[in-house]
């Protein structure tokens, strides 16, 4: 248990030069560089940044899900001693432009989402006024003194209801309905195949609304130096360069005037992906006051003001022949984007992987983005993939039951084989390579699936029945080319970049725009850089997340960082290495071909006595002294790299549950995850990423849910006391197994790994419960699944059998 088992190497599918090399650092569990500061309390999170004469901001928020703002009277707040500045919607409209969206849905209008609500607010928690004072407490007191007259409007909180005729309209000036946009992909003739199929299953599957809930909330410190025309922003973000772009757009100033830095970020999980209203507000206040302004989101605000995740409804249709061969698949799904377009935009990965790891050529998918009077939904780890995996994999088991087949056998029958790959799915995306079937078999073996199937479903002495559920998946990691993104309306690129700079100490500064959000990029980047250069791991110092020092990049999301950065690191390190060798060889009086870099030295390949320290070589380069005449001074390289394609991770999870058929109480007794992320740069980090994401996936499967009151439209589970994230004692035993099929489309064969764990838990657990309760005819069509929902499913099953008997 709990071991990160190295499976026997899979057949190599590429002949990349890198793979023939024996790696020194790539593939080893180097301890993390980040830990040294974080373990000492020396991290620098946004709230740790403090300036002289700093002021603090508080934000007044709409308490209703939908309300017209009739009047705002700030006079009493301004009279309070210590209050420095107040902003209302009117001033914000004069001084800034609406927030832009990084990934607008093609065909959707740009909504006028200003940093403060204009004539009306469309979600509970939308900022309406902001106040800056000498302390946060005083700013909050001032908010209390502002009189705002609201006229509550009819609201809609259900995404399906929002799209019905007669629903209250959120943005009538921009949209004739609450449908922000819809778009689809298709291949073949799914409708005709469904018509002709032997079995057709249709089901509506609901995935609940959750919150990514990083332990560090959002925060921003804005400093404006008018004479220098420099706005300096410290913020907790995954994408400093994209925040800079979006801030420039909203503040209507040039990007050159803005510096964004994110030092340590206390978790993001997709939620810290782009500009938020408070970033614009703090900037406007700072620019008006010429004093530093800090805003730190409190947790109650966080539940309403930071983007939520997941909520979507999938109407699936799965058609098969009598043997169980899938002949067609369609999925029309509705994602709930909330009251405004979030800074990142609606998920579209459900459309990319809705056919899962299966061979089905005739398939169609349609995405509908619905607006409701709730907090905007943004990116969250997996972003569309856990949702669609739950819907599809639950349906696969349902088909197995309908046909009287073993769910494992049904998956085996339909799964893409290595020789089927590369495989193009309806969206045009291409599954690169992999052995999906192998992960399925490994997962089944790990939980002794065959023995379980052969034994009868009888309760154990404790009254509980055991069940095993499988969930197989393919995960898109990274992005295909910028060209692909352009077709999907994206306002960011697909590349990553890095700058390497030699310094006189004989070490290398590595600059990246990727901020440190817990994904260990500092460690992994240094590993790759040191590997290519031949220097010690400790010789590389990573400086991350500052737009003033790093080359323009994209950022840490979509499991793309390492995929793209690995290429950039290699492209920057190779010329850096070559120049180091040329200068070192010159110093030694040998030919560059005879020189090698080792540790902190350049030396002769065969003669250890001929050696020169890197500090010497780098000093020569920096001074321009003691170098060949045809060399330019300096030793600094920058590379931008765009992967030729996205890499697809894959795997299978198996859950073992024990459920009480009377009460619905259940527990997950084992959870096995077999996963392939290609070449693991640092297996320890990979294990940490997979485990962490699995626990988030388990949390969302087993209880996390942001519920809204159907009548009042108010958020019911909007505090840490009401929203239960997994604690250490709640986590079931998790076993990780992995295979390693190198991706042919990425540098070093890596595939992304940050999000995968969120994908399979929901379906694996639902399928395990259905397996245990097979004799009761229980079905699940919604996440989360709690003992109460199991009990209800049991009641429903009993009633329907009684109804049938009567």
């Amino acid at each position, binding site marked *: 248990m709990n071991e990160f088992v190295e499976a026997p190497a899979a057949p190599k599918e590429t002949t990349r030069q890198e793979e023939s090399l024996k790696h020194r650092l790539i593939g080893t569990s180097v301890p993390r560089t980040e830990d040294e500061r974080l*373990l000492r309390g020396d991290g620098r999170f946004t709230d740790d940044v403090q300036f002289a004469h700093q002021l603090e901001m508080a934000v007044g928020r709409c308490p209703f899900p939908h309300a017209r703002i009739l009047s705002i009277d700030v006079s009493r707040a301004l009279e309070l001693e210590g209050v420095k500045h107040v902003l209302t919607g009117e001033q914000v409209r004069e001084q800034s432009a609406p927030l832009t969206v990084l990934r607008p849905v093609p065909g959707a209008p740009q909504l006028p989402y200003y940093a403060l609500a204009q004539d009306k607010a469309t979600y509970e928690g939308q900022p309406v006024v902001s106040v800056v004072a000498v302390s946060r407490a005083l700013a909050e007191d001032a908010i209390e003194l502002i009189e705002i007259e609201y006229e509550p409007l009819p609201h809609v909180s259900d995404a399906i209801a929002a799209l019905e005729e007669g629903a209250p309209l959120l943005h009538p000036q921009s949209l004739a309905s609450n449908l922000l946009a819809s778009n689809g992909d298709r291949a073949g003739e799914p409708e005709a195949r469904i018509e002709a199929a032997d079995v057709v299953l249709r089901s509506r599957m609901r995935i609940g609304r959750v919150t990514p809930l990083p332990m*560090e909330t959002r925060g921003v410190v804005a400093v404006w130096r008018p004479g220098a025309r420099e706005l300096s922003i410290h913020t907790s973000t995954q994408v400093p360069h994209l925040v800079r772009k979006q801030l420039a757009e909203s503040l209507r100033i040039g990007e050159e005037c803005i510096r964004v830095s994110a030092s340590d970020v206390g978790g993001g999980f997709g939620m810290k992906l782009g500009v938020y209203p408070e970033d614009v507000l703090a900037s406007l206040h700072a620019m008006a006051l010429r004093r530093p302004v800090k805003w730190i989101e409190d947790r109650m605000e966080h539940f309403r003001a930071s983007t939520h995740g997941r909520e979507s409804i999938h109407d699936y249709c799965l058609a098969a022949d009598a043997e169980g061969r899938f002949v067609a698949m369609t999925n029309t799904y509705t994602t709930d984007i909330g009251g405004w377009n979030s800074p990142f935009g609606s998920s579209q990965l459900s459309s990319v992987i809705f056919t899962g790891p299966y061979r089905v050529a005739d398939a169609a998918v349609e995405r509908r983005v619905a607006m409701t009077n709730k907090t905007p939904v943004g990116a969250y780890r997996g972003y569309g993939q856990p949702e669609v995996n739950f819907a599809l994999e639950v349906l696969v088991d349902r088909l197995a039951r309908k046909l009287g087949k073993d769910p494992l056998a049904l998956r085996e029958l339909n799964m893409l084989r290595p020789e089927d790959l590369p495989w193009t799915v309806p969206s045009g995306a291409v599954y690169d390579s992999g052995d999906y079937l192998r992960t399925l078999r490994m997962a089944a073996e790990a939980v002794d699936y065959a023995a379980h199937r052969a034994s009868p479903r009888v309760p154990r002495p404790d009254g509980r029945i055991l069940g095993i559920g499988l969930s197989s998946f393919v995960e898109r990691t990274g992005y295909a080319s910028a060209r692909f993104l352009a077709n999907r309306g994206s306002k960011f690129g697909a590349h990553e970049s890095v700058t390497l700079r030699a310094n006189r100490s004989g070490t290398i500064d590595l600059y990246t725009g990727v901020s440190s959000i817990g994904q260990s990029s500092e460690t992994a980047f240094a590993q790759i850089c040191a590997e290519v250069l031949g220097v010690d791991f400790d010789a590389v110092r990573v400086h991350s997340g500052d737009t003033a020092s790093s080359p323009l990049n994209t950022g840490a999301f979509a499991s793309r960082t390492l995929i793209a950065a690995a290429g950039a690191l290699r492209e920057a390190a190779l010329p850096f290495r070559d120049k180091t060798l040329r200068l070192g060889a010159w110093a030694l009086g040998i030919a560059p071909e005879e020189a090698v870099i080792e540790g902190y030295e350049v030396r002769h390949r065969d003669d250890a006595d001929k050696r020169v320290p890197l500090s010497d070589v780098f000093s020569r380069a920096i001074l321009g002294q003691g170098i060949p005449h045809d060399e330019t001074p300096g030793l600094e390289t920058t590379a931008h790299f765009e992967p030729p394609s996205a890499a697809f991770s894959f795997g299978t999870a198996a859950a073992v549950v024990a459920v009480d058929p009377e009460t619905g109480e259940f527990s997950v007794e084992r959870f096995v995850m077999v996963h392939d992320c290609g070449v693991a740069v640092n297996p320890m980090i990979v294990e940490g990423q997979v485990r*962490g994401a699995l626990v988030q996936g388990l949390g969302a499967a087993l209880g996390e849910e942001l519920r809204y009151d159907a009548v009042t439209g108010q958020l019911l589970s909007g505090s840490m006391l009401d929203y239960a994230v997994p604690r250490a004692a709640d986590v079931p035993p998790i076993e990780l197994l992995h295979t390693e099929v190198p991706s042919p489309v990425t540098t070093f064969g890596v595939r992304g790994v940050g999000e995968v764990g969120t994908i399979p838990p929901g379906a694996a657990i639902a399928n395990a419960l259905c397996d245990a309760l097979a004799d009761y005819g229980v079905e699940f069509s919604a996440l989360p699944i709690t003992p109460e929902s199991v009990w209800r499913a049991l009641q429903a099953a009993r009633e329907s059998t009684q109804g049938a008997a009567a």
Partner: protein
Amino acid sequence: MTLNENEITLTLNGESVRAWAPSRMHAADFLRQRLGRTGTHVGCEQGVCGMCTVMVDGQAVKSCLMLAAQLDGAEVRTVESLAEENGDLNALQQAFKRHHGLQCGFCTPGFLMLATSLAARGEPMSREQIRDEISGVLCRCTGYEGIVRAVEEYLQLQQNEGQVVEVEA
């Protein structure tokens, strides 16, 4: 200092300090903002997340639930006190590093202080007990496995060292 601020004298990480805080300021903000010990974090101010866990008079407490004024006369330990005098990470910190018990590191100070107080009890603990005992601090990144392994190893080490001392005495 303004009129409605209270004077507070305490021992912080072995050093005697005197500072002022408004009556309604909680202890976590006081440690961070008035005493500059920003290793102690704030995640909810509701007593749920445990990010603000510090040791007060030998006990792990959630400092967001205490008022600054309650620290008057107390002996307080924060994460900044853990490393060895020569600057090395202490055994607990090393165990966290070795077992990958942190990713973003925001929760780490809370877990370190909680584990330090658990070790002070000097009782052996099973993995299950450790999981229960550390459930007052949340981590959204790691899935807890590395944290549990690190705490288990550290407690065992403390146990062994304790036994050695007893035998010698």
